[in-house]
């Protein structure tokens, strides 16, 4: 055996050993933490090891009703931050989420226990009626939400969602920067997971069904 192939064999053996050890380690994690570990880590979704309870916030929905912490309880919520003057990322993401919802709805558990919330970080331009018109285009069940800047910041901060509205005097089409992640809040109003872009409807709905099943198992 020449030096190169010997080196190669050593490398292969090392990799194989490392993989075995990783397997043993993962199995142990899996045993310890229930099957949640199965989903960690993932390129589609980051499942938080300890879901973080959200605290009070006060926003308004697209029918001018209060949207607060209580609005997140009893349902799984998919939260996406954006603005209606966004021509690329927001419509793309909302179209993906509408397809994800269809996938989830076709499952036997259905979509009765989920809601999709589009939170506008641009209340200056996004009125309730405009938000209603915008979100229902993608799916009738989608909810548009906005509010004053401090309260949007409050919820965004709790979820770790970043955004920046660069209002410029005299400039109608001022730029808005926002995270493209989708946040999953569980029925106990806890920040439970985050979906990272690029978003894919099938990947999101598949992951969600597993998470929901696991939580249903934990609750009983």
């Amino acid at each position, binding site marked *: 055996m020449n030096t190169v192939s010997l080196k190669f064999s050593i490398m292969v053996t090392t990799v194989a050993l490392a993989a075995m050890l990783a397997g043993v380690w993962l199995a142990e994690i899996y045993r310890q933490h229930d099957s949640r570990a199965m989903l960690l880590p993932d390129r589609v979704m980051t499942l938080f090891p300890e879901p973080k309870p959200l605290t009070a916030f006060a926003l308004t929905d697209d029918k001018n009703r209060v949207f607060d912490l209580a609005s997140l309880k009893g349902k799984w919520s998919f939260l996406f931050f954006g603005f209606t*003057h966004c021509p690329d990322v927001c419509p793309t993401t909302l179209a993906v989420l509408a397809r994800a919802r269809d996938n989830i709805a076709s499952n036997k558990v259905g979509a009765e226990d989920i809601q999709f919330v589009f939170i506008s970080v641009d209340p200056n331009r996004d009125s309730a009626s*405009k938000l209603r018109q915008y979100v229902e285009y993608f799916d009738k069940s989608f909810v548009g939400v906005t509010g004053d800047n401090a309260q949007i910041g409050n919820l965004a901060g709790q979820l770790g969602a970043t955004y920046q509205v660069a209002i410029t005097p005299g400039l109608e089409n001022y730029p808005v920067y926002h995270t493209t992640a989708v946040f999953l809040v569980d029925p106990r109003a806890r920040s439970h997971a985050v979906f990272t872009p690029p978003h894919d409807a099938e990947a999101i709905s598949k992951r969600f069904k597993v998470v929901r099943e696991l939580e249903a198992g934990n609750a009983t």
Partner: protein
Amino acid sequence: MRWRDPVFVCLISALSVVPAASEEAGVSVRDAWIREAPPGMTMMAGYMKMRNNTSRPQFLVAASSSGFESVMMHRTVVRGGMAGMAHLSQIELAPNGSLIFAPGGYHLMLMTPKRTLRAGDPVVINLEFRGGLVLPVTFAVRK
């Protein structure tokens, strides 16, 4: 290359009205589409696949359309976990290279449509290249 096959080019011409000028210009465009927008929205985005059939770089320097108040060239960029739009004054097409305008990347930002556009509607956008060439491309509105 299939792209240059005369039958295929005719087919594209029939579907998306790529005029003969595109071949002369050495730039061809296909799969040009605009995402249908929710009612009342004034911002739309156009996507396409561009190909430079020449051995020289080509520069897209502007776009305009009688269907919109203004058209700009943009690219969605992600910085510090936040997506935003970068306005581009020109877009270079490498020699014999392709460039894809797709959601989350390069797009034509189409502001204030003159009429409500619905899936199936055709809209002509003129792509202007350095050197004075203008390439009219028909974009199809779709969901």
